[in-house]
């Protein structure tokens, strides 16, 4: 019995009933309360220093001119004015949008289709699954180098095959060709992302109640109807999350572009995306303010999707 008040304190320090025996300050200095404050406080402090602090500082830097050496100079919205007149920015933004549209269409449909097919009892399904999601464990520089080599105009495998089937006259310059460079980078990106989408949907399918589909089967629904009217609607929460991840990944795109076009962002900046443009401005050209402005634009575009994600997550959280 004597331990009961103690339990109430440790389980919920803020709503613990005020016990008359112990004065307020004694309870505040309770060892458990201190532990709780430190447990949450230390991670939160680290998070503030390395994530939220820098994010907020970047927003402030975007209103300045700063070369990372002399003190920053406040210039208001000039960086943003310069941005909207910069053809490179338009190019990068367009490439990000192309990336986004391609990512939402190809890997999402392919990944979903594969997940639905491979979720069923099928021989060799583990082999198929492993092959498709293998790229997920490779680092993006490794993938970038592999595909760079793959698409080399003279020695690459793709053009070697084209020559082998005597279509050598078609063999393009791929990453050296301003019209095809982005497509080559996107090929590598899709190669990786299909597996990601498939894995996420497979997890979602595992969580579905099989009795729903069985009931539909008994009612005479064919496989497509079953998918269209039962499985796909039930997967909606997964789809929202996959969609947001896909969008955020396409906005964050950096490594593949940077590796495959060797930091030069392709012929005539054909593969330039916001992230590489930002990186070059901030790290190579010491135009911290300008780079920060690009980062803020990225943040603003992401924000809508981040909110969607958080709403979805909070909804599932309430159901727990």
């Amino acid at each position: 019995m004597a331990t009961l008040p103690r339990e109430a304190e440790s389980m919920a320090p803020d709503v613990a009933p005020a016990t008359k025996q112990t004065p307020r300050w004694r309870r505040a200095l309770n060892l458990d309360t201190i532990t709780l404050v430190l447990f949450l406080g230390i991670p939160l402090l680290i998070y503030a220093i390395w994530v939220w602090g820098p994010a907020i500082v970047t927003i402030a830097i975007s209103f300045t001119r700063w070369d990372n050496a002399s003190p920053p100079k406040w210039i208001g919205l000039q960086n943003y004015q310069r941005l909207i007149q910069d053809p490179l920015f338009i190019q990068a933004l367009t490439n990000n949008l192309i990336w986004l549209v391609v990512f939402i269409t190809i890997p999402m449909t392919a990944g979903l289709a594969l997940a639905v097919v491979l979720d069923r009892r099928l021989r060799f399904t583990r082999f198929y699954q492993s092959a498709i999601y293998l790229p997920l464990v490779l680092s993006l520089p490794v993938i970038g180098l592999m595909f760079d080599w793959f698409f080399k105009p003279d020695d690459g495998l793709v053009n070697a095959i084209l020559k082998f089937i005597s279509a050598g006259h078609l063999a393009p310059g791929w990453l050296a060709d301003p019209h095809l460079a982005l497509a080559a980078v996107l090929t590598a990106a899709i190669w990786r992302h299909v597996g990601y989408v498939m894995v996420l949907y497979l997890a979602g399918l595992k969580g579905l109640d099989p009795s729903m589909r069985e009931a539909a089967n008994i009612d005479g629904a064919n496989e497509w109807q079953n998918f269209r009217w039962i499985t796909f609607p039930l997967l909606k929460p997964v789809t929202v999350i996959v969609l947001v991840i896909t969008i955020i990944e396409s906005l964050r795109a950096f490594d593949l572009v940077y590796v495959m076009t060797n930091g030069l962002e392709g012929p005539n900046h054909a593969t330039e995306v916001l992230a590489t443009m930002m990186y070059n401005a901030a790290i190579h050209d010491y135009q911290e303010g300008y780079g920060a402005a690009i980062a803020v634009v990225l943040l603003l575009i992401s924000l809508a999707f981040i909110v969607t994600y958080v709403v979805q997550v909070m909804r599932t959280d309430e159901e727990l």
Partner: protein
Amino acid sequence: MAKITIAHPAPTEQSLLGIPRDVLLRRIRRGLLHVILASLAIVWLIPLASAFYTAVRTFGEATANGPWSFPPHSLTLQNFIDAWTTGGFSQYFVNTFLVVIPAVILMLLLSSMAAYVLARHRFKGSRLVFMIFVVGLLLPFQILIVPVYWLSNTINIYDTLWSLIAIHVGFELGFCTFVLHNFMRTIPKELTEAAAVDGASVFWIWWRVILPLCRPALAALATLEFTWKWNDYLWSITLIQSNSNGTVTFGLSGLRGEFVTNWNLISAASLLAALPTLLIYLILQRQFLGGLFAGSFR
């Protein structure tokens, strides 16, 4: 009697080899599906296979006979040895382990502390704190580059492994807290309450009740985070300058500058760089995927 004959397939519908037509159709469809899936799987493995083929051939032969000549005259492991020794990958490997292992341990410890408070000791504003972690994990990391670069310079950890440990732990706290929080909420309250009734302290409950129960989630997260941090590229090239402090991905990006045309060496180095994560994935597949599934991901 008549009804029964309708229910069974009529003998005239027997087709080739005496297999009923619907069974045959189903088998053909199955077979077709396998052909499509198998070709897709093979296409998916081509980049890796071609990198491997390039890696086991000598630079001399590739120059003389073309990089894809088949069958090869000779196979060699020399490219792997060169990458490991003269390419400096032995050092890059050590550095990456020195970053990734402490970073993963630290991020799991810290985030399990935060997740425990948020999942089990709700207070006014705990939802807001949880949101702070969740929103942070989705921020485009480009927005952090300049201040983090400046910060690591200011506290004198720029171009050291400490800077990488710090940003990895910091940035991943959001994701790990999110996943562990969701997992801890599925642990029955009675377990922790019983310990509290027995007079256990908050610290004891976290260390002796919560953490052991979270082992599957921690294992899954550890595998996933190991893979992600091993593969990190952006922070390595942003915060590291000297080769002696380089990570594996840092070393890979440097190879091209040094050995402009030696793709045999680069392929070998890429495969070496991928080896630990490939092994982890093959051995701990369940944990790896579990990690992706654990907290509805990012």
